[in-house]
């Protein structure tokens, strides 16, 4: 009953307002709304009514269509980039210089002795493939232990179906290849990798060129050997700063090897970083031109290269941001011996907006990969992430870490003795596309990125005329000897300087903001229909009202049904008082019948009173009538 009372009250409320049928409601709405258009639908004659109805509908759909476009634009989170170019005082980039060769051959010779003898012998076998020619230089027995772990084989595929695999140090053995070889019709140098000695789980890594195969094989073997050497020892075996950096000049200030930070890089041994900004403030450069840049003279002592490990000779250098790890294999450039290399630098700064505008990370903390390079105290970069991800996989699958990447805690580097199958594991992991994809998907780019664009030019240095004295002075400074200990093949001059326009900043800003969205939405709504948020609220109100009407109708319909049923049971049961009252209050019954003449119901309902004579005095019906007759 309480509910009913509430409904009745709601009904009364409705009566005061728009009315109690849908049509009334609509008319009321059209008459009272602030949206342009609906008002005209009810005010005019049938033709205009139709036109206005059509127009209103058209504009409403236009508004919704345009809103769709606008919201879509907003949700795509576009950015606008602005570019600025100029010269300003900037931090001089960190400069990493390394020798292309990681260790002095004279220092590591004792470690690699066996391997070198082995490879020499192997090369001899390869180059003179006649099997009868057993002119073994049997001076020393070869350490075949190393060999058996990863043998080099020749695969003769003249006969496609039955390739002949020839282990270089074994008797000729014919075996079915396990189908991984490429169908090359010529003899090719190959490596064979087995997961375990004597196990069947083997793959052949094919190379079409023996040079490539030998290099890769040597790298694998030497990696295994060197990974057992402790880090201190490895640093000692590499090039020392005082040997490598002969002269240094930054702007007008002299500098020397002590201004460089030493870092051990697995690929290139000892690397030296100028202006890394780890301990002291980064240097600024406020002048363009070679005069104000960094000038270095390096000695790479090419005679001391490990012959099989790195075939290219030169210095590897890289410009990078302060406090970032130099990934020389990715971004490094070579400087050739016997030349002066000038590098003009242009700094490209990228400032990206983070989520949701682009998928980037500010400091790498939200990347699900443990950054192994953080042990160097360096900032996050996508290269670091990819490498850490690989190393993590390697540790997970092979049980040991690869020598080229930093170690997670409590894990050792792989070597042939402790982890005999690591090479197989590594090579299968490396060629696994799935693992790579996982890493690529989980690593994100950094939002703020600095790239150094280099303009590289070279000239011969020292010139023939100056060669003599330059070598003399440099040799004297390094060794205090009067002999020339340097030569053209080992000496490199580097000039690194800012170009005239040294920076280019590309920064992003949101193309569409919420303010933009709102003003555009409002503009559209206002443009087509003159509406505002209040109009939307009005519309919402109407919907609520119509819901009320529906509820009331449903209730009354139910009641009517009940009544009918009751009447059917007791044909002439007298109506109860409450029912009678309701019949007067709830005009829903009458309205449905009287739908044909809706305007009459707009009158304040006085159900009991007789039809008044004063009706003719009323203003309103005339009001409505006159346009009606007008249209006629």
């Amino acid at each position, binding site marked *: 009953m309480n509910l009913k009372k509430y409904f009745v009250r709601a009904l009364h409320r409705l009566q005061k307002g728009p009315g109690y049928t849908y049509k009334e409601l609509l008319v009321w709405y059209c008459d009272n709304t602030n949206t*342009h258009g609906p008002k005209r639908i009810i005010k005019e004659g049938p033709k205009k009514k139709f036109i206005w109805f059509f127009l209103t509908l058209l504009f409403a759909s236009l508004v919704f269509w345009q809103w769709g476009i606008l919201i879509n*634009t907003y949700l795509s989170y576009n950015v606008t980039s602005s570019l600025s170019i100029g010269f300003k005082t900037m931090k001089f980039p960190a400069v990493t210089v390394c020798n292309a060769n990681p260790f002095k051959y004279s220092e590591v010779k004792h470690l690699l002795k066996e391997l070198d003898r082995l490879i020499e012998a192997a090369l001899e076998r390869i180059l003179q493939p006649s099997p009868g020619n057993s002119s073994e230089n049997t001076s020393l027995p070869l350490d075949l232990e190393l060999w058996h772990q990863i043998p080099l084989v020749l695969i003769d595929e003249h006969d496609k179906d039955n390739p002949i695999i020839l282990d270089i140090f074994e008797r000729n053995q014919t075996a079915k290849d396990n189908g991984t070889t490429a169908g090359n019709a010529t003899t090719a140098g190959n490596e064979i990798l087995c997961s375990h000695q004597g196990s069947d789980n083997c793959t052949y*890594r094919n190379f079409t060129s023996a040079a490539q195969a030998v290099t890769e094989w040597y790298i694998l073997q030497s990696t295994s050997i060197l990974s057992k050497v402790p880090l201190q020892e490895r640093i000692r075996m590499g090039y020392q700063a005082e040997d490598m950096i002969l002269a240094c000049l930054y702007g007008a200030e002299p500098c020397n090897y002590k201004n460089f930070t030493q870092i051990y890089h697995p690929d290139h041994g000892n690397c030296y970083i100028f202006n890394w900004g780890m301990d002291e403030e980064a240097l600024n450069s406020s002048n363009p031109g070679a005069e104000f840049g960094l000038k270095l003279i390096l000695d790479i002592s090419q005679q001391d290269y490990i012959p099989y490990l790195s075939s290219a000779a030169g210095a590897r250098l890289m410009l990078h941001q302060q406090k970032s790890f130099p990934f020389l294999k990715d971004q490094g450039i*070579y400087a050739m011996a016997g030349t002066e290399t000038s590098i003009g630098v242009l700094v490209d700064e990228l400032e990206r907006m983070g989520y949701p505008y682009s998928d980037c990370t500010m400091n790498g903390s939200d990347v699900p990969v443990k950054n192994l390079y953080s042990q160097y105290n360096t900032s996050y970069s996508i290269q670091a992430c990819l490498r850490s991800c690989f190393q993590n996989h390697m540790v997970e699958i092979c049980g040991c870490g690869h020598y080229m990447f930093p170690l997670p805690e409590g894990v050792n580097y792989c070597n042939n003795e402790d982890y005999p199958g690591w090479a197989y594991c590594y090579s299968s992991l490396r060629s696994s596309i799935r693992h790579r994809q996982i890493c690529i998907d989980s690593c994100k780019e950094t939002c703020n*990125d600095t790239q150094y664009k280099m303009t590289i030019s070279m000239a011969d240095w020292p010139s023939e005329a100056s060669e003599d004295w330059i070598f003399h002075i440099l040799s004297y400074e390094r060794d205090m000897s009067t002999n020339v200990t340097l030569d053209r093949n080992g000496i490199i001059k580097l000039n690194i300087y800012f170009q005239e326009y040294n920076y280019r900043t590309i920064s992003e800003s949101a193309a569409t903001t919420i303010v933009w969205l709102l*003003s555009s939405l409002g*503009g559209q709504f206002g443009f087509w229909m003159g509406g505002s948020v209040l109009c939307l609220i009005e519309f919402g109100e109407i919907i609520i009202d119509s819901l009320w009407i529906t509820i009331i109708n449903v209730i009354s319909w139910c009641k009517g049904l009940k009544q009918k049923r009751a009447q059917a049971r007791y044909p002439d049961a007298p109506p109860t008082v409450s029912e009678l009252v309701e019949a007067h209050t709830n005009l829903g019954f009458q309205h449905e019948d009287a739908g044909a003449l809706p305007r009459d119901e707009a009158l304040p309902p006085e159900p009991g009173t007789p039809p008044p004579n004063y009706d003719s005095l009323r*203003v309103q*019906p005339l009001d409505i009538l006159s346009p009606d*007759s007008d249209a006629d």
Partner: protein
Amino acid sequence: RYSSMKDYLSELDKETKKALETFYGFSEGKSKVRRSADEWNSTESDFFKQIPLLKFEDFSRTATDLRSGQKRKIEGSVFHKDSSIVNSGDSNDIIGFQLCDANNSSECALYTFSSGVNAIQEWYKLHYMNIMAQIPLETKERLSYSADDLLLTCFFDGLSCDKRHFTRFHHPLHGNCYTFNSGANGTILSTSTGGSEYGLQVVLYIDEADYNPFLVTSTGAKIMVHDQDEYPFIEDIGTEIETAAATSIGMHFTRSRKLSKPYSDCTETGADIPVENLYNKSYSLQICLHSCFQKAMVDSCGCAQYAQPLPAGAEYCNYKKNPNWMYCYYRLHEKFVKEQLGCQQICKDACSFKEWALTTSIAQWPSTVSEDWMLRVLSWDKGQKINKKLNKTDLANLMVFYKDLNERFISENPANTLVILLSNFGGQLGLWMSCSVVCVIEIVEVFFIDSLSIVMRRQWQKAKKWWNDRKRDQSGKPPQAGDPERQGHNNPMCVDEDLPTFNTALRLPLPQDNPLPRTPPPNYSTLRLETAFTEQLPDTLEVGQH
């Protein structure tokens, strides 16, 4: 290009070249004064010597010394002097060649160069194109380097690769070029990591001894990084790499996209450019310019230039068929350079393009200590084909890799779209006038349609009145008096047609229509709100009646 293999075809050409070389070669150790004298002497002897070789060669290869007037006279007896001089140098020894129209020998063009080197190269190139134009493509491909010759080792993304990963295409001037990962066999290799060990590493065998001494004077290879469906204009934008060195090329990829039509004048596919794309590749400005030139060449000279692909139904120029093509070509080329052919106006930029920014650096390779075994093994790799030991100046090591996998994408977005224009418009209208399109339509409605219809009605009424008056005048006494009196509420015509039915009349208190005719008309009229309509009412009623 194997000049040695090609020799059997270009033997004549080479022979003449040798002869020419001798007459320029005199200058080497001698003074410049001597040189010019020598030049002439030898020219004359050469001159006659050349005639039997190629008929046209003597015309074109006249080395003229501008200084000596009397020599000119001798020459002038053969061809006329009124050459259109391209370059009147002030230097004493200017070397050049003269091109004449074969049909009309009085029209000659003299091309001079300040250096004999340029002159000879240019001259040689012309003859070379002549000869090559006559050789069918298959022969040329056979004569040029094969992939086996060129590639010693190949390594991509940690895996070995070989010549099957390379697609050959024949370049008119560079001979056979090989494209790695051209996508010709349907698959496009992709690299997943940046860094030099994951890129392409090749060792190229460049047989320096086998170079054509006049056509190409530099040793090395030319490479170009381009998209799969882009034509490599290797002579225009190739990067040269050095022998006996490891060239490491780090790439950074940039993709750009411009907005087409109303925003900028670029073309999406090139379909809207009236120049036929002769290259079987996607559109680029370069392709358009070349195609445009080739078309002009075919139109005006009747044959196609050798360095560009053939349009349908045309053939390459050569002496035998088109004796004066060179003159024509040079004329046309000059026009082209001066933008008189209109190609530069017709051709538009492509809207989207890809660009690889290359960072090239060079290291010595092989290093002194590894040189020995490296060369030995590479020679073995080369294997049976060549028995000689390789020299390090015959080799070039090339590494091409992505520096990082970041891609830079530069795209244009329209600053103002129609949607934004409309919403700004609406915003302004709403802000200042609280008005909308509906409002505008209303204004139009009221001030144009409604007012027009009112005016029309008035006119109609007037006309009718006038007509009635005239009628009345004519026909004495028509029922004219009734009309004005009948207006208003008494007018029986105004009564609603659908009279209330019995039912409605019974049930509803009083239909408002009913009392109206019954009420006494005039007194309550004053109560009515819309006084504006009272004036109008007669009109509407009048119209309603008819």
